[in-house]
């Protein structure tokens, strides 16, 4: 039943607007930013290009804000428009809500993954055939790309996959928080904006306090900061997970779904 509900949700989500928006997220950085950085920065390795592409793009700054419009607000809309009352006689509403949450996570995961991975594929595999990017070969002085450099040392492809996964998983956490908050709070605007506020404000606060190695921004996009020990990136991650767990707990306890 859950699978079936998820497939309905996916069908609901995948409309033209969604495709245009995700295509923009996935391709725009490549199309608009690559030409700008190509030639104005010194690149030695493919991952340097990938790193610069991301850090020159607005993706790190706006990260949760780019993913939340995909589908996180759908519960709030259906509640507002009284649609849920028709769902209730047809299926268990708790299954429905879970299916919505999973679809939201799934969609976000794919889009966020591709948002990082497609540029990587292009830079790593397609560009060598067309030689568009200009690499400095005269002198070799590679600069570390940050915390994930250790993986890149192992294998560049592994880096591409692991890093894209890392970003995608974090994206999932942020949209899930937005989704759960939209169930808890009556004010949809506040519910959907909180993940971004968290992202941005905690970044600001950690920067001011000299704790930037724990900033959400720097742990998901660790480029503008010196390489940190690997465990540091899991601190904000764990905070998010704890937050999600307590939200789920709260929703179950307060029976928020039924008494709306």
């Amino acid at each position, binding site marked *: 039943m859950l699978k079936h509900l998820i497939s309905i949700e996916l*069908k*609901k989500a995948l409309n033209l607007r969604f495709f245009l928006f995700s295509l923009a997220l996935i391709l725009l950085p490549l199309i608009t930013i690559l030409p700008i950085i190509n030639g104005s920065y010194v690149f030695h390795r493919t991952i340097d290009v990938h790193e610069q592409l991301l850090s020159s793009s607005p993706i790190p700054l706006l990260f949760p804000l780019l993913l939340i419009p995909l589908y996180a607000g759908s519960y709030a809309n*259906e509640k507002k*428009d009284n649609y849920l*009352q*028709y769902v209730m*006689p047809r299926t268990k509403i708790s299954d429905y809500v879970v299916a919505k949450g999973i679809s939201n996570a799934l969609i976000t995961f794919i889009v966020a993954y591709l948002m990082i991975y497609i540029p990587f594929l292009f830079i790593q595999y397609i560009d060598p055939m067309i030689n568009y990017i200009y690499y400095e070969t005269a002198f070799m002085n590679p600069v570390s790309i940050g915390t994930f450099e250790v993986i890149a040392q192992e294998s560049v492809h592994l880096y591409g996959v692991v890093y894209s996964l890392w970003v995608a998983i974090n994206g999932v956490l942020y949209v899930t928080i937005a989704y759960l908050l939209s169930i808890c709070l009556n004010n949809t605007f506040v519910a959907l904006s909180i993940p971004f506020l968290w992202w941005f404000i905690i970044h600001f606060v950690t920067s001011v306090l000299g704790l930037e190695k724990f900033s959400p921004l720097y742990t998901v996009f660790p480029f503008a900061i010196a390489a940190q020990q690997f465990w540091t990136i899991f601190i904000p991650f764990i905070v998010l997970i704890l937050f999600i767990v307590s939200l789920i707990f709260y929703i179950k306890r307060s029976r928020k779904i039924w*008494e709306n």
Partner: protein
Amino acid sequence: MSLIELRNISKSYKGLTLFENTSVSFEKEKIYGIIGHNGSGKSVLFKMICGFVFPDHGGIFVNGEELGKNRRFPENFGIIIDKPGYLGDKTGFENLRYLADIQNKISDEKIKETLEKVGLHYTIKQKVKDYSLGMKQKLAIAQAIMEDQEVLLLDEPFNALDVDSVENIRGLLKSLNNEGKTILLTSHNNEDIEVLCDHVFRIRNYKLEQIK
């Protein structure tokens, strides 16, 4: 065995009493009308029968099974409660399609047929958020009957409908009843109730009293 049975129900909201120790049962294949002044608790009654809200005391039995033991909603009910609901940025047909997909019992043809029955053209490409209130109401009726639901709980089904549509829907409900459906409806319009209902209940003094 009654189809729906309310046993010693009490319900109040923050000091506002709506029902007090009231019992009533509804039989199969009849049309029931519920009347009562505004705020007397007609919608709340329907919500309780659907299991959306719980009575403070007493139990509600559908087909002999008590609701809310594990928060299950009764099966095969078609409902409209309060204002109509919809997915704002989909068309009417898509709205019904998504709802039908959940149980996957009916085809597109059936949906189109139902839309025609309630007086909406399935080819309308407007999004539902731009529908008029009456159109939304028709869509609400369509979703309540499209899957051949056995029991229909219709809260003010004639709200916002024009005269012709009211006639049409009345006929539709009659014929559904002839097919063996049980219908519970509320209306503030006495004519609707008189024309349609086999039995009528009025909410007074926190009880449901039968007046027909």
